[in-house]
């Protein structure tokens, strides 16, 4: 396993545990990163027990041994395992494999099994369209799920569903999969969560109180970031409408392979770096350009990638700390930020 020379400097819990700038900033925004005990509800607010979770996204593992992306995923696993206070769980936000091959999925599961914390996963398009998710499901379970954890409701959904374009065209499974390889593929069209998951989502949150913090994980962002590259979910408005009653909704996603931030209604959306390669920002104006990571140096194979750690505070706020392999972040988000 290769070791990043500055990984400890960027380690989330390392930052949190030191009386340094990051801790100062965290306290300045009202977050106590060291607090792990149960906190009672205060002032009518929903009780949240402070805790942490981590994110690893888009490993894009290829077949064969000793691929550079294998080592980069291993580095992300090490980053998370090196957190001084372990996250309660790690979210894998899709594209574990590049071609959806079983050996790639198995390799991803094997590397991710080295995490000390349990994982929850959602699929990406690269995992899905060779066998319509069969291999991914066998390795990682159901793609649609929810659970409650320390006062927060967590939701995972499959956001990369498209209408059937392969049956009429008589495509083989590999041909179907290959039309998802280019980010700007003209064939599959815009993907989304579709009606069945929308119905599930409506039932899932029907009995939840509006003051429950909700976190939703999708592979792609729940807003129209850049549809040409499927940086979107076609029915994201329906998702946001269903979640519209909640005071605090956080959406975390992968797919974009870079840091990005937005607020749409009550949804705060946060995109994470991949562990494989950084994608450039699309030719649009970002809603929050201060969250744009630095231009990656192509001669540094570590640059522009990494993992992320999130800390929930007692009021349901989240402190986000990206954990880049190299020095990829601008000053404004280098030491974390309150989402």
């Amino acid at each position, binding site marked *: 396993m290769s070791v990043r020379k500055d990984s400890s400097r960027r380690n989330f819990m390392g930052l949190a545990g030191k009386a340094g700038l990051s801790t100062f900033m965290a306290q300045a925004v009202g977050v106590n990163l060291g607090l792990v005990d149960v906190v009672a509800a205060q002032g009518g607010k929903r009780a949240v027990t402070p805790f942490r979770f981590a994110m690893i996204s888009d490993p894009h593992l*290829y077949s064969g041994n000793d*691929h*550079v992306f294998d080592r980069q995923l291993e580095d992300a696993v090490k980053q998370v395992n090196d957190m001084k206070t372990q996250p309660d769980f790690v979210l894998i936000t899709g594209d574990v494999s*590049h071609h959806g091959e079983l050996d790639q999925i198995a390799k991803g599961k094997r590397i991710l099994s080295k995490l000390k914390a349990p994982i929850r996963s959602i699929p990406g398009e690269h995992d899905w369209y060779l066998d319509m998710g069969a291999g991914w499901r066998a390795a990682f379970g159901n793609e649609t799920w929810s659970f409650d954890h320390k006062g927060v409701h967590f939701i995972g959904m499959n956001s990369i569903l*498209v209408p059937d*374009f*392969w049956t009429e*065209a008589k*495509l083989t499974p590999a041909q179907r999969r290959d*039309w998802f*390889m*280019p*980010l*700007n593929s*003209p*064939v*599959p*069209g815009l993907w989304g969560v579709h009606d069945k998951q929308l119905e599930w989502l409506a039932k899932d949150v029907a009995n939840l109180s509006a003051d429950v913090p909700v976190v939703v994980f999708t592979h792609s962002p729940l807003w129209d970031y850049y549809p*040409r*590259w499927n940086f979107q979910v076609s029915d994201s408005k329906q998702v946001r409408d269903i979640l519209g009653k909640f005071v605090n909704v956080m959406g975390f996603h992968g797919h974009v392979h*870079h840091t990005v931030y937005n607020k749409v209604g009550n949804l705060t959306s946060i995109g994470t770096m991949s562990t494989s*390669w*950084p*994608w*450039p*920002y*699309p*030719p649009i104006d970002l809603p929050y350009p201060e969250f*744009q*990571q*630095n*231009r*990656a140096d*192509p*001669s540094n*194979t570590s640059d522009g990638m990494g993992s992320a750690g999130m800390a929930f505070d007692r009021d349901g706020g989240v402190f986000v700390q990206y954990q880049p392999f190299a020095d990829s972040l601008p000053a404004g988000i280098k030491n974390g930020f309150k989402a």
Partner: protein
Amino acid sequence: MTTRIKLFRWLAVPFAALSVLALATNVTAREPFTAAELQAKDDKLYASIKRGYDMWYGARADMANNGLACANCHPDAAATNPQTFPKFLPMFNKVVTYRDMVNWCIENPQGGKALDVRSDDMTALEAYSYYLHRGVKIDTGQVMRQTAGPTPNNARGFRAQGTGIGFDK
């Protein structure tokens, strides 16, 4: 025989050969162009762009030994910034052309075999990348932002026909 006459005689053969070649391809290199001539030029250009597009997305296997293609990091040729070359790049420690950078990417992140810089395939990669950046101001030098990308409309139009599948019918 004067030097001038010797020079004319020396140039006569290649000029004659070029004239024959021009007649053979039925495309001249000066105005006024006929519609057929313009179409012929565009056909040649778009064929090269399409070849470049296919290579960009992995059509030539020897450009990588790890499965990666140009498009892994540069969808729509974003963040390639051909309009900024020639420029100094630290990995070369000198001023280089866009072709040099393309070969650097092929040899390093992709672990593949560099292209002959005078080959039609290298021209095709350039044709695709420059086509997407048409209209972008030439701005030689370092790029500070993550991307000075092409517009979406620049990424369409060079395919002679759609795939006929799905949303590309």
